[in-house]
């Protein structure tokens, strides 16, 4: 498995190895060059010495005075220093004893700039050669011979090569050790450098559904991790509130179901257990029916809410006439409004059309009409109006609401919220406005509510719902 730590460590170790290798190669090259230059300088000196020992004898014979005390090394068999003196035509004039019978390749150069070469003798000696063409001096005379000769001197370079090999071995061992130490240091550094990531990971792993209250401490984290932790904190906050909402919703839904269930159960048990008069029996059936209807309404609304949650983006768009949609919605609640003596005052322009989803809009308007018909005080007036306003159509529902307080307003659209939350046998579950607002958002609109002082008198107040629907 790929890990950040593994990859970082590997890359740093590879870079470290390359750098160490390059440093080793450079050092080796430098030492080798210095040693070679020094060796060549020595060899050059030897060449010059042998050149001065080369003389033309009386009688024209050219020879090197190997018996000279300056050059004893040439007289040892298989010695470190060798020479061979050739005539210009390649004929060998003289060779050192140390060379034995091995042949040296011709190497030409001028006395000012001798030529260097390497050669390996058949007996295994590796030699550095320096060659020069020159006119030897004539013995006891101040002038040079007119016969040009070619002198090649050689020196065994095994010692230098061994030194270089030892240097290479030393560099390799030092480099490898340094690399090992470096690798450990890198591993430690990466590991401790990534510790905040690991801690954050552990904290994140520890968060489960029950610990959504957890927040990560952002300040002590490195700058790169701070935005991550901050985003995680925001995500957790959103999750927590979503979970809370869901828990509250489930809790309330369960509560809303328990009461009618208790009613049905007790009704059945009482009727099985105790003798009842005909009137009591009829009353029981009416109670059972009312309870069942209440449960039915709850189930339908809960299903609608769930479908609304799933319906994100499936809202249709077709031309809808606002006036007729509102009238249609009011019809469902007309009977209830009339029974409560509520007068309707509708002012809807005829030509207001919007593209919307007629079904979802119907649910929104239906719930708003139902809310007014149910909660406007008996004998009061409900006013519904509509108007076009900068790219939107506003539908306003207004009725008296003396019981509501400013503190109630934030809860108005909460699921299961009711002004008198405890009424178990209320006709409504407090889902209508929640449903209306959620569906309004689904069709691209908004639904808000405000309290106003009543227009008719100074003491009362009115609630106004504003449904804003987009025109395009």
């Amino acid at each position, binding site marked *: 498995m790929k890990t950040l730590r593994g990859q970082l460590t590997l890359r740093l170790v590879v870079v470290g190895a390359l750098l160490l290798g390059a440093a080793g190669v450079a050092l080796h090259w430098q030492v080798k060059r210095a040693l070679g230059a020094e060796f060549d300088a020595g060899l050059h000196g030897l060449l010059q010495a042998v050149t001065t020992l080369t003389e033309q004898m009386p009688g024209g014979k050219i020879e090197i005075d190997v018996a000279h005390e300056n050059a004893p090394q040439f007289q040892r068999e298989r010695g470190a220093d060798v020479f061979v003196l050739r005539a210009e035509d390649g004929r060998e004039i003289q060779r050192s004893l140390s060379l034995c019978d091995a042949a040296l390749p011709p190497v030409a150069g001028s006395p000012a700039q001798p030529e260097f070469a390497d050669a390996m003798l058949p007996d295994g000696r590796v030699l550095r050669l320096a060659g020069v063409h020159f006119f030897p001096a004539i013995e006891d005379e101040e002038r040079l011979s007119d016969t040009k000769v070619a002198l090649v001197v050689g020196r065994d370079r095994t010692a230098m090569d061994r030194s270089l090999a030892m240097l290479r071995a030393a560099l390799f061992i030092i480099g490898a050790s340094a690399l090992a130490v470096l690798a450990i240091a890198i591993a430690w550094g990466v590991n401790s450098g990534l510790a905040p990531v690991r801690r954050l990971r552990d904290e994140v792993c520890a968060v489960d559904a029950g610990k959504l209250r957890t927040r990560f401490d952002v300040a002590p984290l490195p700058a790169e991790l701070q935005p991550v932790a901050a985003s995680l904190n925001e995500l957790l906050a959103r999750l927590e509130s979503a979970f809370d909402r869901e828990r509250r919703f489930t809790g309330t839904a369960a509560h809303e179901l*328990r009461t009618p269930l208790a009613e049905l*159960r007790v009704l059945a048990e009482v009727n099985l257990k105790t003798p009842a008069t005909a009137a009591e029996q009829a009353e029981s059936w009416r109670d059972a029916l009312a309870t069942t209807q209440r449960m039915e309404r709850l189930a339908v609304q809960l299903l609608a809410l769930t479908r609304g949650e799933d319906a994100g983006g499936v809202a249709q768009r077709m031309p809808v006439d606002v006036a007729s949609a509102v009238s249609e919605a009011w019809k469902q609640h007309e009977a209830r409004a009339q029974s409560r003596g509520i007068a309707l005052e509708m002012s809807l322009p005829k030509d207001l059309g919007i593209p919307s989803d007629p079904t979802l809009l119907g649910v929104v308007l239906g719930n708003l009409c139902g809310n007014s018909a149910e909660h406007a005080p008996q004998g009061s007036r409900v006013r519904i109006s509509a108007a076009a306003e900068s790219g939107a159509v506003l539908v306003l529902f207004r009725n008296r609401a003396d019981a509501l307080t400013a503190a109630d307003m934030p809860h108005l659209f909460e699921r299961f919220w009711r002004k008198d939350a405890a009424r178990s046998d209320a006709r409504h579950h407090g889902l209508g406005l929640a449903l209306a607002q959620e569906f309004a958002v689904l069709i691209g609109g908004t639904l808000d509510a405000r309290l106003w002082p009543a227009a008719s008198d100074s003491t009362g107040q009115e609630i106004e719902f504003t449904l804003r629907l987009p025109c395009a």
Partner: protein
Amino acid sequence: MRVLFVEDSQVLRRSVRRALRHEGFAVDVAEDGAEGLAAAEANEYDAIVLDVMLPKLDGLTVLRRLRAAGRQTHVLLLTARDTVADRVEGLRQGADDYLVKPFALDELLARVAALCRRAYGAKESALRVGALDLDFSARRVSRSGTPVELTAREWRLLEYLARRLGEVVPRAEIEAHIYDEMVEPMSNVVDTAIYALRQKLGPGLIHTRRGLGYVLEAREE
């Protein structure tokens, strides 16, 4: 035994009252917290069944105010909330028992009966008064081994007297504990019931103290 049932659901109010009456309890009902608190403060109940979620005043507040006023009436909390935290909260506020909706009617009746028994500190489930044997848990009574058939209300009356064996129980107290607000005030229900009970149990058990009340004890007059 007189019970107050505070519940905002009309269906539950009606049904449970019917069942409790059938069991011989005197039952008053209240539909919100304020009404319940007023009734609990005005009358001597043997037990109160209190819904937690009530309009006007919630059940826990009613309970707290009752306890603050020094009322030790046994209270059974009835609620749709069933988390441990809810139960703990209820018991901490001074509730004696806790029942979660939906509930079995028999369980509610049994718990109310148990609370009423606790109201008189009675733990023994049987009692012998002269030739009379009372079995409180089975709600049976027999005289010299012969079972005596009593109506639920007659049984409650006998039980009430038996729990205070040898004590003179004032007539008004009997009326307060055995009869609920459905009964006409100034009626002679208590005298009538005592008379009926005497007829069934035979002489020498329920005695009248003129101007004081009644007493249950084994004594020849």
